[in-house]
């Protein structure tokens, strides 16, 4: 187990992503943040805090999406679901999907399926902390990415929140 991005570096990346988002989507009232369970929710909560500070109190709506019931391998491995929480309408909004690591693209495909059961957004953008572009299995790319990381196919990258509540990105090798 190795730390790839420590908490301080991670917060710097979040800060930069928040700046990018504010420039790309200046109207926060029509933009919503949706984190994908579980790592994406951690990233989206951090992004939300950064956006709140930078946008001087304008409220950015944010929620969390669980894709358990939408996975394409759902019946090979039955997993207990996480919490879904989208307490607002996404109809006509710009939805920024947030995840920790973009890898095969399957999670994002499932997240898009799940999202459209809540309504018809105007557009959906993808923002990830880390991109692993060389192992993609679907034609899905991130609109905003914090860092590109090269790793072996079997390597697992995992966002972990330690006892002090600090998020860091770990490499779990086989």
């Amino acid at each position, binding site marked *: 187990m190795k730390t790839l991005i420590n908490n301080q570096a991670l917060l710097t990346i979040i800060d930069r992503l928040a700046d990018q988002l504010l420039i790309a989507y200046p109207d926060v009232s029509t933009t919503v943040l949706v984190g994908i369970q579980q790592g994406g929710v951690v990233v989206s909560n951090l992004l939300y805090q950064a956006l709140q500070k930078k946008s001087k109190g304008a409220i950015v709506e944010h929620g969390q999406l*669980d894709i*358990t*019931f*939408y996975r394409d391998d*759902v*019946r*090979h*491995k*039955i*997993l*207990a*679901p*996480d*919490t*879904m929480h989208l307490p607002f309408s996404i109809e006509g909004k710009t939805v920024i999907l947030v995840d920790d690591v973009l890898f095969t693209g399957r999670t994002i495909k499932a997240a898009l*399926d*799940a999202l*459209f*059961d*809540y*309504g018809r957004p105007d557009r959906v953008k993808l923002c990830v902390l880390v991109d692993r572009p060389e192992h993609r299995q679907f034609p899905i790319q991130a609109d905003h990415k914090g860092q590109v990381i090269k790793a072996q196919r079997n390597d697992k990258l995992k966002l972990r929140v330690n006892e002090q509540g600090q998020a860091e990105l770990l490499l779990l090798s086989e």
Partner: protein
Amino acid sequence: MQLSTKHLLGIKNLSSQDISLILSTAEQFKEVLQRPVKKVPSLREVTIVNLFYENSTRTRISFELAEKRLSADTINFAASSSSAAKGETLLDTVNNILSMKVDMVVMRHSASGAPHFLAEHIPAAIINAGDGINEHPTQALLDAFSIQEKTGSLVGRKVAIIGDIMHSRVAQSNIYLLKKMGAEVVVCGPPTLIPKHIASALGVSVSYNIKETLAWCDVANVLRIQLERQNQVLFSSLREYSIAYGINRQLLDSLHKEIVIMHPGPINRGVELDSDVADSKQSIILQQVENGVAVRMAVLYLLSGRTAQA
């Protein structure tokens, strides 16, 4: 996390972890049912047959809705309009259905143990939707879910089960479940409708006094008096039962506390429950029905994985 069982035959052989997993999964499905699109694709490639050898409205519709909201394909089978009426055996009927590639079987049967028998002989996952006077596991799960939702927790909760305990699969499943999850249970009814050794066999207390029972409990689960068993002369008349064990507004007001009223349906209004009690704010009868779909979705979802390997 997975269930420890391949079938849901009864609460008796579930662990408390199994029950917690079903209830927490049901919470997520309840959220699904509040969305604009009340449907998830999880069981898209699964075919489920609903085999009902006994009449049912709520349970059958609830299972069918749960299956459709998981995107499963469903077939409905009612014994009265099928070859079973021509004398085909249960096993033959089911094997014929399974040869058409069915993955899961939801079954209600008037014979206790019928789903257990099927589970030994066929490869599909079986869900018991009520067997004779044995068990009705999904009813107990949805009752527990509703109690938890209304009162916060099952641990230490005082639950009274009132009515025909002797012939009730709902009572038996509820008792198993509530005991496993740490609730206290009292059964109450006329002595002729309460099995003699239930206290030692299932670890519940027995009361023959409705007023004392209601004063003790937080939740009263009132069972249906099964009119079809009236030829057995277990009490002299419905009117007498209603006077001795029926729950009315006056009785509830005399308690000076608000208890939760539940009923698995169908209600005999004016027998075990008066209308103004059944329709009052204290009653969560319609929430039970609503929660039934979410709980059955959780059961079907959690059992669907095993059939992929079978």
